[in-house]
């Protein structure tokens, strides 16, 4: 039984509105590391919030299936669902400074999670908090417990966020752009830390980022999203080496590291359509150099291609050319 099984998730804000996320499916096994890539506004964060149950009014979620460890998430009572959050299902956000409460010490914020979900006594909670800070590489953890978030750097605050998320040994950790706000040397440290904790605890990790290179080094499987839909899914190595969806290929080609010297980058023309300007048919067709008549008329389904799935009427053959 997979740890997380989401089928045909759709999220809209307001009745009768265009869905922000449409037909999102994700099956995640215990201990798996999966990356979710896409530009801003593609729906990656909203889908994660929906899994966490953090979409409030006027958001409307419809899903064929939403199961976590065998429990139907959409049928759980709010109380049951809350007891799941922070215990089996934890999330780390992009901005550590705005996710931590500035009025409380980090020691309080870590032990708060432990108090809510475990039967540990005060002294045990404290020693577990010290242990957690040690695990996430914070020097002098005993004295750091009394620090407030503003007294720590953003890299340290992100380590604290990870410590809170790991406090109850979750089975699934969702990390939403965990390193985007950080400097590059600190980013490398945080990614190493997340992977090290993942290997040690055997939890599953969902890594959401716009940075394809981050996913290349961390996730075994990747989902690429565009305009609210998953357009390609597959083993990271295969997807990056021989993308099947023209959007994936164009995104990879636009990276400066793929170009030598001062050559022009193969930039993708235009920009991501806004929610109210998503076109008929395939949402990528106005920017796609392979678009044909069928792409303008019909919205493609997510179908097997190569080693994964692709949402394209005319998927690439895997060597950069268009298929048969």
């Amino acid at each position, binding site marked *: 039984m997979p740890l997380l099984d989401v089928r045909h998730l759709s999220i809209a804000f307001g009745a009768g509105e265009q869905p922000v996320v449409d037909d999102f499916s994700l099956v995640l096994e215990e201990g798996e590391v999966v990356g979710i890539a896409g530009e801003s506004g593609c729906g990656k964060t909203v889908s994660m919030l929906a899994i966490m149950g953090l979409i409030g009014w006027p958001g409307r979620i419809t899903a064929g299936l939403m199961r976590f460890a065998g429990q139907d998430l959409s049928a759980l009572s709010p109380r049951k669902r809350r007891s799941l959050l922070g215990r089996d299902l934890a999330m780390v956000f992009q901005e550590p400074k705005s996710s931590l409460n500035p009025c409380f010490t980090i020691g309080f914020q870590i032990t708060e999670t432990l108090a809510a979900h475990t039967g540990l006594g005060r002294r045990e909670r404290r020693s577990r908090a010290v242990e957690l800070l040690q695990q996430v590489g914070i020097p002098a953890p005993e004295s750091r417990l009394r620090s407030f978030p503003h007294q720590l750097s953003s890299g340290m605050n992100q380590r604290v966020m990870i410590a809170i998320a790991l406090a109850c040994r979750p089975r699934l950790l969702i990390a939403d752009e965990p390193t985007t706000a950080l*400097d590059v040397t600190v980013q490398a*440290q945080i*990614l190493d830390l997340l992977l090290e904790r993942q290997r040690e605890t055997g939890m599953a990790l969902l890594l959401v980022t716009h940075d394809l*290179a981050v996913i*290349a080094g*961390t996730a075994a499987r990747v989902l690429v999203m565009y305009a609210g839909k998953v357009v390609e899914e597959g083993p990271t190595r295969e997807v990056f080496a021989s993308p099947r969806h023209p959007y994936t290929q164009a995104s990879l080609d636009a990276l*400066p590291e793929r170009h030598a010297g001062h050559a022009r980058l193969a930039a993708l023309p235009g920009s991501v359509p806004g929610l109210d300007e998503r076109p008929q048919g395939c949402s990528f067709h106005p920017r796609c150099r392979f678009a044909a008549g069928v792409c303008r008329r019909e919205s493609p389904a997510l179908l097997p291609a190569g080693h994964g799935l692709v949402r394209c009427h005319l998927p690439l053959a895997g060597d950069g050319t268009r298929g048969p």
Partner: protein
Amino acid sequence: MTGPPVLRARNLARTYPVSRGPFRKPATLHALDGVSFAVPVGKTLAVVGESGCGKSTLGRLSAMIETPSAGRLEIDGTDAATRDPRERRRLRRAVQMVFQDPFASLNPRATIGGIVGEALAINGGLTEAERRQQVDEMLRRVGLSPDLANRYPHMLSGGQRQRVAIARALIPRPKLVIADEPTSALDLSIRAQVLNLLLDLQQEFGVAYLFISHDLPSVRHIADRVLVLYLGRTAEYGRSDAVLARPRHPYTRALLASAPRLDDGPRRPRRLLAGEPPSPLAPPGGCPLRTRCPHATALCAEVAPLPRRIDGRVVSCHHADHV
């Protein structure tokens, strides 16, 4: 290459007083300390480093928003500290800026045409029709339709806004454009468009760039020279192909190795630099990197390394010969 470099710094330094409360003397923050470099006509110098390393201070000094505390800064062959008002005005026109966040750097109450044409209106000497024509022409050059001139910034996407910011910077025909993280607020596909545009415009107008960035793949793509700063001091400075292909300073190496790459296999932990940058208010004595550097020795704690020439670039490291 013709004429003097558009920007030349010699031992440039900038300090800021930092208040430590009402009854204590303010501390001194060395934002920049003894930095030297030159930007030749029509070339690009990239300034890289982590937050707090002095990148943006360098940009602000070059744009004459602030004045150096010590050292000399020459813009287009003239000392930027000149008192002659006419010269100062000429230098200010020669240097323009493009900022990081195009959502914050455009006046929401001004039309696109007004924003781009403002510099022309201030410098005078043109009729309204001539101005209008130049604005339309510049909008076309940066890949926007002249019809946008009557719109307001909120009607534009992030990529379009950054194009407007670039048009505004180029319309007074500057010799140098300071681009402070111009692509880091943009999405992947838009980032490539803006980098292409910057390269095209450099070809067309012969403008030089001071490209401030932490995105090493972009730097590798656009820069002719690279200046690596650490806690306000030069770590390494030289031609970008040399510095980025064969870094000699441990900090440059760590920066390059930390940046995730597409062709990475499964990630191996690479602890190249321990910890985080120390507070610039209390930098370690000796070499500023020594608390994080794997090659640090007793010498590094005692003596701050001076910049020296090795292998075609400038490096400030005692051990640059053999790391």
